[in-house]
């Protein structure tokens, strides 16, 4: 009696287990297809991927700009030196004029 009930229960369970698993699988597949439709239908990932790729191209431009700015900083320093030397020379012009006058005397 006991073994009979357990065997019948077991055979029942095998069938219902399979069908339950099938139903669960169908449901899960449906949910996943719905989610995929939502994400693919709004082409959000594609749009964002395009924009990210474009932005990544600008990396080169930004590096270029950074290098140029560094060069410009050096150029500014050089310009400062040249400005100093020119002002010094301009002042010396005046002194030399006086010297020449003194020598002429």
């Amino acid at each position, binding site marked *: *009696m*006991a*073994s009979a*009930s*357990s065997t019948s*229960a*077991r055979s*029942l*369970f*095998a*069938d*219902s*287990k399979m*069908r*339950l698993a099938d139903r669960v699988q169908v449901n899960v597949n449906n949910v996943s297809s719905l989610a995929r*439709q*939502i*994400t693919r*239908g*709004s*082409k*959000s*990932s594609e*749009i*964002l991927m*395009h*924009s*990210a790729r*474009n*932005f990544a*191209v*600008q990396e080169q*431009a*930004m590096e*270029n*700009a950074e290098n*140029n*700015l560094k*060069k*410009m900083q050096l*150029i*500014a320093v*050089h*310009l400062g030196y*040249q*400005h100093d*030397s*020119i002002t*010094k*020379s*301009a002042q*010396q*012009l005046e*002194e*030399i004029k006086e*010297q*020449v006058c*003194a*020598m*002429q005397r």
Partner: protein
Amino acid sequence: MGSEHSTQSGAHGSHSAQRQGSLNKDGYKLSNIRRQHTIANPGGSEAVDNDNGRPGSISPGPSVCSDIDLPYISYTVNRPIGDSPKLTNKQLVKSKSNSRRAQQSKQNKTKSNTAHNIVVVRGATTNTPGIEKDPDVIRLQGIPMFLPIMRATLSLPAARDPEVLERLDPMPFCNLCLRYQHHLTTAANLVATEQNHLTQRIREADSEVTRMVSVASEKQRKFAKYAEKFSKVQELSHQLNRCHMLLNQTLESMETLNNYLDISDRLEPFVWTTG
């Protein structure tokens, strides 16, 4: 194999029993899932220890209400072959509550027996934390128990389906999904336009910087030439100074030379006259 089969089917049967609305509390589902994991171990329960209680579980013990469609499920859970289903509730409760702990202790005992009679004061519980700490399992356990909307059983046809389907309207859900989809699209477009603006500004800034660098370098070249020319002034002043000094020296030496001569032969004192 037989006992394993019965335990697995029993677990599944009890699982389906819950889904069909038996009088079980939430804790039962938790413990059931846990038991499913431990039952599926290959070294599964062969003997049941009737003396230990369930460790560390606050939830009440599993109930033994029989199901609507599939009877005698609770009797076949964790029962080896040949067990009488007319066992008392106490023994069943004890067996169910002890199954998990029994498997642990059984594994520990087998481990300790095969390891040359090492006395294990506290058994190693390596297996269950490995399962319990899994984030997916924890999330699964966090799902509350819910009833299906359509109470159709697996084998019988959906008798109550028409009246349920009348009340279930998919249109709102469809609209919700469409709206979400549209929202995602708009958000993505917004972000894309912002990124495009930024890209444009970056390109403009880059071109500006290059233009300014070229202008600055041009200026620097011109200034370098001017500075070179102006530095000649310095040279000029040097040479003038030397010239002056040389002239003075020459005048002095002329004076001394003139003084070395006799007074009769001396020339006139030198006066520098400019034309």
